[in-house]
């Protein structure tokens, strides 16, 4: 295991990533490069390993083997290695994550949620963190809710606060794991709208989603995963209209 700095060209570089859950080989030799400002959408059926892949990128799940480089922080793991805490912390600082279930801190107001990382991790004074937090709440259109606890927010509002919380740490890449799957249909739009805006502003994003319309509109690249491997990837037009692999075709026929 080692950590070193590589060139600035790619933001995310994954090489030969493997993940086992016990005897279950969930990620099988995944390699992927994401360029700055690129929006990559991951699709695939349930259990194909999409969440596990995202979660390996910020070590919520520990990869079994492989190399992960995010914003120049390189972490190489041989089977059985344990990563050093400092390396994990560095990786987490350059990734922001948005969860399906929002996972807001219920005992904190919207603003307190957003500035928590700034205060405890980045050690900013509260007076310095508050304006930053307010800026990101305004960005997701929720500045007027800053003193409200999550229990008083709708699902869509919660997810927007969660996005602001991740953005406030100013990560180099944002990871979204089915950000709209827990939402009532009428609340999905507002969250997708925020994500589209981020994409327009050039935020580098990796998104797991079942929102195919969103993928078509926003993605620079769509990746189809099956059984822990990348089957096919390409521009959304190509993947959605004339996929090369029969497995991709079958999956798309089933859901569209």
């Amino acid at each position, binding site marked *: 295991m080692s950590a070193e700095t590589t060139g600035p060209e790619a933001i995310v570089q994954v090489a030969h990533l493997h993940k086992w859950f016990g005897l279950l080989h969930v990620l099988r030799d995944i390699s992927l490069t994401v360029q700055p400002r690129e929006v990559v959408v991951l699709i695939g059926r349930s259990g194909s390993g999409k969440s596990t892949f995202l979660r390996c990128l*910020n070590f*919520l799940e520990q990869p079994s083997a492989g190399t992960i480089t995010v914003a120049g922080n390189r972490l190489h793991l041989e089977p059985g290695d344990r990563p050093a805490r400092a390396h994990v*912390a560095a990786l*987490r*600082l350059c*990734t*922001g*994550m948005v*969860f399906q*279930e929002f*996972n*807001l*801190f*219920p*005992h904190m*107001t919207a603003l307190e949620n957003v500035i*928590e*990382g700034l205060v*405890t*991790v980045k050690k900013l004074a509260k007076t310095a963190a508050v304006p930053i937090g307010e800026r990101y709440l305004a960005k997701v259109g929720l500045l007027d809710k800053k*003193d*409200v*606890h*999550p*229990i*008083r927010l709708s699902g869509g509002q919660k997810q927007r606060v*969660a996005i602001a*919380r*991740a953005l406030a*740490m100013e990560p180099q890449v944002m990871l979204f794991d089915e950000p709209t799957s827990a939402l009532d249909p009428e609340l999905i739009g507002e969250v997708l709208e925020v994500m589209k805006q981020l994409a327009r502003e050039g935020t580098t994003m990796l998104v797991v989603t079942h929102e195919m319309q969103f993928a078509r509109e926003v993605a620079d690249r769509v990746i189809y995963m099956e059984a822990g491997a990348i089957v096919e990837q390409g521009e959304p037009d190509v993947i959605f209209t004339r996929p090369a692999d029969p497995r991709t075709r079958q999956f798309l026929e089933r859901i569209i």
Partner: protein
Amino acid sequence: MTAETAPAPSDPDLSMGLRLQARQRHERSLEFLRVGAVWLVLILALTLALTQLRIEPGYLIRRSEVVLKIVGGLWTTILVSLVSVSIAAGLALVGALGRLSANPIAQGISGFYVSVIRGTPLLIQIYIIYLGLPQIGLQLQAAGFRQLGQLFILDAITSGVLALSLNYGAYMTEIFRAGLQSIPHGQWEAAEAIGMTRWQILRRIILPQAIRIIIPDVGNQFIAMQKDSALVSVMGVWEITYLANRSARLDSKYMELFLVAAGLYWLLTIVSTFFQSRLEKRMATAYER
């Protein structure tokens, strides 16, 4: 408060709602009065029965200074319980963190502590601390460790507080552990994802939420402890039970004075329960603003 005192609403739905609500309140207070009446009858019947058996309530009035002395023991009981439950909560927090820790030493120590304390009677623990430890202290002093030996010789109140703290700390360790474990895993993940360390997550995310969940149980432990604190009377701490026992022996008025003591504990429990439910209500709305 009834619907009549509010300005008559024009909305028929609302006025019907208010009427139903007023009626519900009325019924609830009637029921409360009925249950209260039953309690009163029970207490009167018991008093009557006791007077028939040559138990003298009049004694309590004649020797009111004895009663007041026992009431004075209330403060010691409250003090001992309050201090002990606070120390126990601290122990329980450390114990719970130990039990949940990945470190085998922390796990071993906390598991051992909980097992030993829960597996032995509180009275024995009191005896070991009050009568057993001084034996060690004297040995140490004989061996020339004067200061160290002195630490093992504790006065009655300190021994009582120590025993109650250790004992309740073990039971509360399990309460704290369950509380910490009840916080959804997503809370840990969200905090990890923004880069917080394990310790920061515990302190700022998990504990504040767990404490809300734990509060009712800690309240119950406090109420139970008020009564278990009667055991420290065996060391001659001047709390309710000891004072009742002592005075009762002088005048051979056991039933009268132990009933006074029982009444005091009961009162304490009722008052504590009242404050506990108020605290719980306040905690329940704390996330809402």
